[in-house]
């Protein structure tokens, strides 16, 4: 194995990656490929600074360790450093997927046939002028070794497909999609009825959608919209690296502070199935369930070893890197709002004029968060009625967290095949999200 330099902390993450990608546009195959590679990320820490190197040359790992060590300052007390003390030392092989579930062993042709089985459903719609089907899968076996003695192997895998289509109806245009991902190939088989329903919903939408009158409305969020809201509006603020060395943030984000409605709980958990399923993070820490908000009160946050040490809190297993080219930073895994007790009908009842946000193009979450809906509908007298075109839904994060006034029992975790979470330079990182249907007292609609 590696000869770790003395008087420094160091670790090596080796990623053995298998990926497939198939793209078909309007029935024409544009791409069908497999990719396999092994590459590594090396870290050295001297108690003051980190030194990183990413390399595609596995033979150079020892050389890189030595080179980084030569840049660092020797520290004979490194083992007493609070960050170094935090690192877990896990050993052994923790493979989550059996050989029969390893889709890197399935032929490209079989994957192509699976994707193609959905194409006739799109072709049947006379409104579809352009479509693209894409299948992706990725399996990564990671090996993690550290100077503290970690010697760990674990795996990550995801598979999914997206059917993207552009509809035209008179002067109106509408781009919509069916997108689903999971951890095993069987999860994306036999979804023809769901695809058919989505296309029918898109047809109804383009035929009937009208511009909305801008203003403030009570809003019901679908599990997809609620999940994105939780991720963007609160999840990022729970990433503890934003608090490092910042007294105001530490004071403002004290555990136990009331931050939302008493029916609101938000959780992040890398053990949940889906594209955010990462049982160990990229520092070799085991994932745990973390309550970010419990019954409206701030109850936890997401950590790397560095942030957990700085804030004197426990590790959560959220140090993730987008790939071998990057260092792990604090990221979410699967983040969701816990379900409530209402039925969907009960949630809608009492809304005279409101908006139901069904699906999204994207969302963002600074002090003002945004949701850019793809499909949205008016709610009149407690019933979902006609589709409406909306550019953006906005609200103040904390005001909105406090204005959550209803949650359904019905609850969904979602995983998508393409896109992902972006943080600074690292994009796209697969994350899962979800929740129940959520009613918010008032949001700005434009």
């Amino acid at each position, binding site marked *: 194995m590696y000869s770790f330099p003395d008087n420094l902390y160091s670790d090596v993450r080796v990623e053995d990656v298998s990926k497939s990608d198939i793209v078909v546009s309007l029935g024409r195959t544009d791409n069908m490929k497999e990719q396999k590679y092994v590459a590594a990320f090396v870290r050295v820490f001297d108690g003051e*600074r980190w030194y990183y190197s990413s390399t595609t040359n596995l033979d150079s790992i020892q050389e890189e360790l030595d080179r980084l060590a030569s840049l660092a300052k020797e520290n004979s007390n490194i083992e007493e450093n609070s960050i170094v003390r935090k690192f877990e030392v896990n050993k052994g092989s923790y493979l989550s997927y059996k050989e029969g579930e390893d889709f890197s062993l399935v032929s490209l042709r079989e994957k192509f046939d699976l994707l193609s089985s959905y194409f006739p459903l799109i072709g049947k719609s006379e409104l579809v002028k352009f479509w693209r089907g894409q299948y992706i899968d990725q399996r990564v076996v990671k090996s993690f070794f550290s100077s503290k003695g970690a010697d760990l192997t674990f795996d990550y895998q995801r598979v999914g497909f997206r059917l993207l289509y552009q509809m035209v109806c008179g002067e109106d245009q509408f781009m919509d999609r069916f997108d689903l991902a999971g951890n095993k190939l069987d999860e994306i088989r036999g979804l023809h009825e769901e695809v058919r329903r989505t296309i029918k919903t898109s047809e109804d939408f383009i035929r009937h959608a009208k511009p909305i009158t801008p203003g403030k409305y009570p809003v019901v969020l679908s599990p997809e919209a609620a999940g994105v809201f939780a991720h963007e509006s609160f999840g990022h603020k729970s990433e503890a690296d934003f608090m490092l060395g910042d007294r105001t943030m530490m004071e403002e984000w004290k555990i136990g502070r009331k931050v939302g409605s008493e029916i609101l709980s938000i959780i992040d958990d890398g053990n949940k199935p889906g594209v955010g399923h990462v049982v160990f993070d990229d520092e070799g820490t085991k994932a745990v369930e973390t309550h970010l908000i419990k019954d409206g009160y701030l109850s936890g946050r997401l950590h790397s070893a560095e942030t957990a040490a700085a804030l004197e809190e426990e590790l959560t297993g959220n140090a993730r890197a987008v790939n071998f080219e990057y260092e792990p930073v604090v990221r979410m895994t699967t983040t969701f709002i816990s379900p409530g007790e209402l039925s969907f009908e009960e949630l809608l009842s009492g809304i005279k004029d409101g908006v139901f946000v069904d699906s999204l193009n994207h969302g963002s979450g600074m002090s003002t968060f945004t949701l850019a809906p793809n499909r949205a509908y008016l709610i009149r007298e407690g019933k979902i009625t006609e589709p409406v075109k909306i550019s953006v839904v906005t609200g103040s994060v904390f005001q909105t967290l406090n204005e959550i006034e209803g949650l359904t029992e019905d609850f969904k975790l979602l995983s998508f095949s393409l896109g992902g979470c972006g943080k600074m330079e690292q994009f796209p990182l697969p994350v899962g999200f979800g929740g129940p249907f959520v009613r918010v007292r008032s949001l700005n609609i434009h």
Partner: protein
Amino acid sequence: MTEEKLVVHYIENAVKIVQTRVSSLRKKDVLRTSVRLYDGKTMGVAGSLGECDEKELNTRAKRSLELGIPYPSEATKDLEREEYVQSDLQNSAELLEATEEILERLRIDQPEFSFSHIFRSSKIESQLRNNLGLNLKSSRESVSLSLVIKDKKSSNIIDAMTGYEGRKFQKKRFIELTNMICDAYKNQLEGIEEGEYPVVFMSDDITYYKKLYESLNGMLFATGGSLLSGKTDMKVFSEKVTLLQTRNVMDGFNEPFFDSEGTVNDADRFALIENGVVRSPYTDKKTASTYSLPLTGSAGGEFDGLPELGTPMLKFSESEETIKQLLGGQKGIFVLIASGGDFTQDGHFATPAQLAFLFDGERFIGRLPEISISSHLYDMFGKDFRGVSSNDFLGLENAKLTVMNMKVEKL
């Protein structure tokens, strides 16, 4: 059989910054190689990371060819060009020293703020060659300084941002920009009257023109799914709007001058909209030949896959007026952060502006409360388009400004 080889070598030195101190140093060295085999009807591709065995790549490319993936286009042939563009600060020790100097200055000048993120120097070396006389080599270096600004008294994750990317290390101007942003941030202004104002964006801020990326996608355009479908050679926008697809290094494009199919344009640019007239969507070879469109050289795709229609860099041509002239004596609203807004399918645009400054064409006067800005694609680039500044903001590289009249409301 055409045999083609693509090699992309990415080298980067980065200094990461947390709370106005250097937290880490990072080096990247990533080599990607792929081999393509094509016969005018189909293509096979195989790729590898790191040092590769070319014979093995050839064998895998032959196996990929058997999949019969259609690629009914000819290879680019009989074309040779080499280009080497250098930048300052490629040496990691110099980059670290420069970073320390800037951070020291900012700690003194702006003690009420903390600064985090990354300073980076990078080099992308690319070569595409085939057995038909194609041999293109590009080596482009760049420097990027990017900081997230946090008011120490604020509970936000991000309060402002500063940065630029180019070939020169412009330390003095970068500090001047950062100080200007911080000083203006501290000067919280009263709200402004709702109404129409000249709104100013950094010209390369995709927020205000992302609809054009969708509308000028060759496949959407040709199949009737774009707002601009059927409008070739029609004057749709203001005379002042010329939109270029660019791979020209002078436009701040740091990837190679050729696209993934080896297409090279005159001056490394192609006008998609010229003086308001729609000339062409962006295309690769397949899209151009399938729909009888001009080939604009917009092939992308991953290094080890078939070339496919990519998303090019788009750039608005500058006017002959400075930013001050474009504002015409009025105060403008400079949008520094507008996150999360979007266009509807029919072209309506709305976004919150989380950070906007009142701007006189030279300096930021002060920070406005959060506002909402809105318009429509045809208005923004039609009657309400004032133009793109002839000058770079504060003399920083690639820092042109775009001005449009837009509706501004309180959030």
